[in-house]
């Protein structure tokens, strides 16, 4: 069978040789870090006008990750394009003619996209945290404070899992238009809106993004209470990811290219 390292190397060449990889990941980084920095600056300046209860439940770590809500859109584009452009361009037929073992092809693609997302996600989350805290002045959290490292590390994990979820979903949908058309509105509009609707929000808590974002919270309040903890949340997200990836594999395995 095809040599796994050869297929990995090939997928690495593929991913690094298209522009969308660079601009989506750079955009995700810039938006997440930049927006987090701006928000931290605003909080620092407005601190005196905040209510006592707001001050009591202020979560400097989570505040610095404010930008992920927007930055993750670029990650969604990255995850979708990694696999869906194979279909939209017809490259999939050339790829599968070179690597007819579809499992190996898919595994390599997922691994390369996942590893790249992990590196970029971790860099983004740690830089976001340190820059945000620097701008929060005296209200900042330290990486050594309880649960803070978990939240920062978890933010990188969240970004990686989000990308993998999109890779799996796009493998099922086989089209960039469909993939982006469904996933972008879902994560940007549907999920955040349902989070605010009474009753429905108890279901929405189990959506991949909402469960996964739990890990970025350090301060627990009655507002952000969930039946699961931070690691439980990431586990729920991981289950979603596994399901999406498995679905994508079944589609790739069974359908004509």
């Amino acid at each position, binding site marked *: 069978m095809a040599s796994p390292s*050869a297929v990995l190397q090939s997928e690495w*060449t593929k991913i690094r*040789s298209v522009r969308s990889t660079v601009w989506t990941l750079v955009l995700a980084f810039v938006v997440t870090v930049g927006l987090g920095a701006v928000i931290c600056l605003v909080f620092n300046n407005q601190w005196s006008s905040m209510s006592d209860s707001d001050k009591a439940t202020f979560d400097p770590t989570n505040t610095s990750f404010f930008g992920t809500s927007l930055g993750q859109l670029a990650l969604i584009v990255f995850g979708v394009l990694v696999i869906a452009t194979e279909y939209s361009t017809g490259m999939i037929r050339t790829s*599968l003619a070179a690597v007819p*073992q579809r499992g190996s092809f898919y595994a390599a693609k997922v691994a390369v996209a996942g590893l790249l997302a992990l590196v970029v996600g971790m860099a983004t989350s740690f830089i976001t945290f340190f820059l945000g805290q620097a701008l929060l002045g005296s209200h900042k959290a330290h990486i050594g404070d309880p649960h803070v490292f978990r939240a920062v590390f978890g933010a990188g994990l969240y970004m990686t899992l989000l990308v993998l979820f999109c890779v799996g979903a796009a493998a099922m949908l086989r089209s960039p238009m469909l993939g982006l058309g469904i996933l972008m509105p879902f994560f940007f509009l549907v999920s955040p809106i349902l989070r605010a609707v009474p009753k429905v929000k108890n279901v929405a808590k189990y959506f991949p993004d909402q469960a996964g974002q739990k890990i970025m919270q350090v301060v627990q309040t009655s507002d952000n209470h969930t039946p699961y903890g931070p690691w439980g949340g990431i586990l729920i997200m991981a289950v979603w990811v596994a399901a999406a990836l498995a679905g994508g594999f079944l589609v790739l395995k069974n359908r004509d290219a």
Partner: protein
Amino acid sequence: MLASLAPMIELQGLTKRYGDKTAVDHLTFTVRPGVVTGFLGPNGAGKSTTMRMLLGLDAPTSGDVRIDGRHYSQLSEPLKYIGALLDAKDVHGGRTAYNHLLCLAQSNRIPRHRVDEVLETVGLTAVARKRSKGFSLGMGQRLGIAAALLGDPEILMFDEPVNGLDPEGIHWIRNLMKGLAAQGRTVFVSSHLMSEMALTAEHLIVIGRGRLLADTSMADFIEKNSRSFVRMRSPQPERLKDVLAAAGHTVVTTSDGAFEIQDADAADLGTLAAQHQVVLHELSPQRASLEEAFMQLTAESVEYHAGGSLPPGQGGAGGPDVIAQGVPAGQAPGQQPPAQEWGAQWRNPGSGKGR
């Protein structure tokens, strides 16, 4: 695994249905090594579908196709066995030609210097670092061929490689295929142009509506199908007819009043006419083209003809006539003409304005 001596492609009852549409219908044939095998069929005959199944891209509904005794998916580094160009557009246009070939090479552990070599072979070295979405049709085709050549494979497969190319490009591909076969490689190339195949292929496989219509050597096909005849016209048709009949020739009168005499020598006929003092206005040796033979063969299975009937002015040139006379859809193309019968209908009046 017991491999055959030389790599070959074997199809066994290969069938593909899309819904209730049968695109490929129990195809059984073997593509033999060392020659160019032409895979001919009109539009929609199932050529591309057959090739996709060969590469394991589409799963057969039933039947089997093997390369060197193995399924395509059992080949561990397939580009080293078989290089294929299905559709030159099957590339990510945002990737440079070099990187496109590099990622294919890496997946099959083909050394990097091969990328430069094949780029040189197809003449794309100068644009190797350009993204392929800016390529012209011809450049795209060359990139696809470069990918097929990458693993230096013994078998090469091209799906309508000359489609949309200018004469120079066509010439180049033709010579490339001949060169590859001359090196002893197996070349399997599809086309819907018989004339093109006559120039490159040694063996012919003809399909129509997914079914095998012919599996023959090109020499045989030409021998059986390019009948020659002599066309004669005279202001004294009755007299000429009598003279010819007396000399033992079978005469076919065409719609424009000319005579066609099969398998006769023009010089002999001219002498004969002179001896009997018959005035001739035309005496021309003719050859039915292979294109016409091909159309004759596939007429029944042509799927998409241009409307049911042709405008009157266009009826002269055998081919379109034959297509227009095609069996209406729904009538089973079941009784395929056995080999001996090809071209048997050449006597059809009006069908023989050879080229």
